[in-house]
């Protein structure tokens, strides 16, 4: 049977992708950030997941204001890296896992979560920067990927509670898939940041630390935190953190913290990263 073997969370700043693509990862500004992912790259090379279920948000790339799905699952064979205005990132095409994606779609919808099904979709830095951070710069990504896009562009995004419970439904779906597959679930975006208006540049290390601690040890209660607290404390774009609760919901109540990294700044953003495993 398929099994969720680990959960990963990481931020996804576009400038991180640009730094890597332009060969600046050893620059003094960027080195501390990329050094923080060296452990993770070794770890994932040993773990060898077959599939990553990658929860991320689209940044007005695949979804314009014509159609704004709250939850959209990528069921295609492959997904092209998008041109976000600076030209497409020079990264490999993302290979999907259409059979598993179809199974998860059916199971999750039958668990009362109404997903939008994407049979064609381009993916932006929200998806490709986490892949670059975890896998570096390979010629091809070393596993299949199921992109799962969450609306955090137009307010309100789904609630933390909804995300957490969705994670549980995804777990149930993966557990009931009749093929031996190692599946990781990733939650991306965050941590504290604000990209707009006179309050741009907001960072809240105290909030971020609290969020990381409670994500690991007190996730059920953390999932009740209302949007307004994210926006006020972690910035208007900090609300992306609800996506981490989807990842967390797909793990056991008790988890082991395999790794944690936190760094300020990457451009305008606080970068957070954790690797979690079930204890059993």
């Amino acid at each position, binding site marked *: 049977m398929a099994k969720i073997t680990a959960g990963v969370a990481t931020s996804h*700043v*576009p*400038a991180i992708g*640009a730094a890597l693509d332009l060969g600046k990862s050893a620059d003094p500004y960027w080195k501390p950030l990329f050094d923080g992912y060296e452990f993770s790259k070794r770890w994932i090379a040993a773990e060898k997941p077959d599939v990553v279920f990658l929860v991320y948000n689209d*940044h*007005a*790339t695949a979804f*314009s*204001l*014509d159609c704004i799905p709250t939850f959209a699952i990528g069921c295609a064979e492959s997904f092209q890296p*998008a*041109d*976000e*205005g*600076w*030209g497409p990132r020079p990264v490999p095409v993302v290979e999907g896992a259409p059979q598993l994606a179809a199974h998860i779609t059916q199971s999750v919808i039958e668990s009362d979560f109404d997903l939008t099904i994407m049979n064609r979709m381009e993916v932006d830095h929200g998806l490709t920067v986490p892949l670059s951070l975890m896998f570096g710069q390979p010629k091809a990504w070393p596993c299949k990927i199921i992109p799962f896009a969450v609306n955090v*562009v*137009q*307010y*309100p995004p789904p609630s933390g509670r909804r995300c957490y419970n969705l994670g549980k439904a995804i777990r149930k779906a993966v557990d009931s898939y009749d093929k031996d597959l190692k599946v990781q679930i990733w939650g991306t975006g965050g941590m*504290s940041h*604000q*990209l*707009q*208006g*006179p*309050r*741009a*540049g*907001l*960072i*809240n*290390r105290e*909030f971020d630390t609290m969020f990381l601690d409670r994500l690991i040890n007190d996730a059920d209660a953390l999932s009740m935190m209302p949007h*307004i607290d994210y*926006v*006020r*404390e972690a910035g*208007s*774009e900090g609300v992306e953190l609800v996506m981490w609760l989807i990842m967390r919901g797909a793990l056991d109540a008790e988890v082991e913290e395999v790794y944690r990294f936190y760094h*300020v*700044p990457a*451009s*305008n953003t*606080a970068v957070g990263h954790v690797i979690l495993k079930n204890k059993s």
Partner: protein
Amino acid sequence: MTGDKPYDNIPGTVIFDAEMSRRGYHLNQFCMSLLKEQNRERFRLNERAYLDEWAMSEEQKQAVLARDYNKMIALGGNIYFLAKIFATDGKSFQYAAALMTGMAQEDYANMMLKGGRSVENNRYKGEQSDG
């Protein structure tokens, strides 16, 4: 929509909700068109003529021409859509963020290196001294 919104009292912040999305629909869809290189070319060649192809208000068009991002946001623009404009200009998110705060880009970058803008005195309107 009617009534107060719980996020209206956050300083220096516009939440892109359904009401702002309606107001900014054409502005944001214009931005979306800049995802295609041939449209970026046409926009660069004659910005005004390109903007006139969109059902935007004159105020929105003037804000785009002036690259006044705070104004665009007040008129319904969303930062992830507006990013297509500064991407077309070859500029970064940090450039645009600095511009919106009124700081020189170098000062803004230094603020970020020192840990960013503090949330203290930045939670509620009226408590902040410098925005």
